[in-house]
């Protein structure tokens, strides 16, 4: 099992937390200035530290397009890493929460991904992996500029902490752009992930810190945590406002219809799936809120359908992961849509 599909804190609003640290090794040039031979030498050095500690190496130079893209869809590697020409290897730990990209933009991109709102856990995981590497490598550093990175925007801590948030109520009430403006003023970045610009499906957002120099890791994470907590709060308040009978009826209707389509459709494109997924996830959240308020609920969706199952469906419905799970033979879009509908139907049948 990967980082998704696990029970977690605040997962009605936060899907996952992530911390990544950019690190480089003294004496080796960066990016395209690093020759293939030197890159292989560096990857060998890193592997010699990580492999005995239980890390598995995935050599991306020998990976086909579908395999590499699947890692992108699982949010484990960057699209840049998947498309890299020179030697580049991913190392993953046996707990499947730490993923280390080597020879991406920086020599090392150490990331820890944890489910739900769990930034401290993600930070601790990333630091543990980094300490292991630090004990045997000369990490590029200077007292003034901190960790030295290929791009000056990552200097200092080299840390990017982020959370993936599900914000359908904030989106529906048109509050998102004002939140995004406020976030950028205090040095946080927000970007839509999936369904961006497609109306009601724009419900997933990634929020992260921007500044890395002059602010310590703990301060950065503390700040992000506070802001995320207040966004979670606002999202829940707006969801609460949606539990009023008239709004609730239309949300419950949309959610029940979406569930019906997911269970009975013979073909589903990923974008249609995402729209239905948002409707179902919101329906479950509002149903829970109504039950908490003592109002009658019921969407017709089995109460055993959890956020974890839904989030796993979201990852597994993406084109490359779906193809890989279906045996890895490339499929046409229409074949994929058939396969996707079938996989979803089967997954929902056992809920």
């Amino acid at each position: 099992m990967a980082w998704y599909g696990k029970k977690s804190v605040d997962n009605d609003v936060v899907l996952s937390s992530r911390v990544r640290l950019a690190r480089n090794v003294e004496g080796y040039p960066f990016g395209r200035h690093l020759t293939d031979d030197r890159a292989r030498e560096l990857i060998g050095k890193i592997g010699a530290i990580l492999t005995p500690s239980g890390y598995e190496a995935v050599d991306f130079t020998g990976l086909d397009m579908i395999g590499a893209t699947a890692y992108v869809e699982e949010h484990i590697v960057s699209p840049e890493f998947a498309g890299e020409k020179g030697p580049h290897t991913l190392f993953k730990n046996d707990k499947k929460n730490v993923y280390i990209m080597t020879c991406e933009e920086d020599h090392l991109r150490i990331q820890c991904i944890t489910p739900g709102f769990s930034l401290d856990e993600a930070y601790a995981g990333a630091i543990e992996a980094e300490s292991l590497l630090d004990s045997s490598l000369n990490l590029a550093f200077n007292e003034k500029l901190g960790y030295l990175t290929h791009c000056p925007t990552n200097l200092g801590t080299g840390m990017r902490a982020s959370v993936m948030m599900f914000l359908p109520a904030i989106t529906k009430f048109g509050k998102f752009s004002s939140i995004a403006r406020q976030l950028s003023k205090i040095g946080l970045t927000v970007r839509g992930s999936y369904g961006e610009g497609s109306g009601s499906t724009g419900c997933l957002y990634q929020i992260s810190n921007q500044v890395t120099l002059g602010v310590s890791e703990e301060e950065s994470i503390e700040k992000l945590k506070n802001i995320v907590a207040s966004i979670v709060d606002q999202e829940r308040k707006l969801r609460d406002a949606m539990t009023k009978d008239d709004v609730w009826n239309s949300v419950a209707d949309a959610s029940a219809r979406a569930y019906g389509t997911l269970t009975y459709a013979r073909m589903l494109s990923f974008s249609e799936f995402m729209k239905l997924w948002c409707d179902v996830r919101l329906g479950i959240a509002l149903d829970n809120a109504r039950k908490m308020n003592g109002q009658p609920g019921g969407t017709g969706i089995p109460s055993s359908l959890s956020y974890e199952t839904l989030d796993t469906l979201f990852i597994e419905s993406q084109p490359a992961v779906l193809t890989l799970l279906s045996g890895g033979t490339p499929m046409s879009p229409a074949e994929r849509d058939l396969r996707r509908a079938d996989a979803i139907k089967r997954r929902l049948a056992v809920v």
Partner: protein
Amino acid sequence: MLCNRCGKNEAVVFYNENINGYKKSYSLCSDCARELEAAGEINLNFTSPFEEGESLLSGLFESMFGIPSAPALSGAKRTVKEKRCPLCGLTIREISEEGKVGCAECYRSFADELRPSITRIHGSVHHKGRFPLRFKNKCEKENRLEDLRRRLKEAIKNEEFERAAALRDEIRNLTAEA
């Protein structure tokens, strides 16, 4: 459609200009277009600022790094021997064009040149936070000193002179250790 100037040849150039509401519109054959352009009536070499991707980008880095990019430097200046990073061989101009350094050594070789742009990006040039094991002694001492100096300032502000004197001595001892 025939050229609306000579009325003989097929029109191949369709020109619309609107500058602050002053509109010009022509359908011209290539000969007439050439003549009108020579006369300065129409401007066929106009490029929109949005089409000039490359120069816009290097302009951006120029403003980011405060360093003129290649086309902005005159020929005379370019023949001067430029400083190169001893490890990766990049010049500051190449770094500013790419927006990224070539290796860790670049930050030392071009510390002065890079400082303004780093300040612009982060608003600070003083790292705070984690450090590698081999920097432990150096960084811990620096952090301790910084903390003491901050507390000293506070003590003076609050007119707690006895505490301030103690803090000052501690700072002195710590700096003398080196």
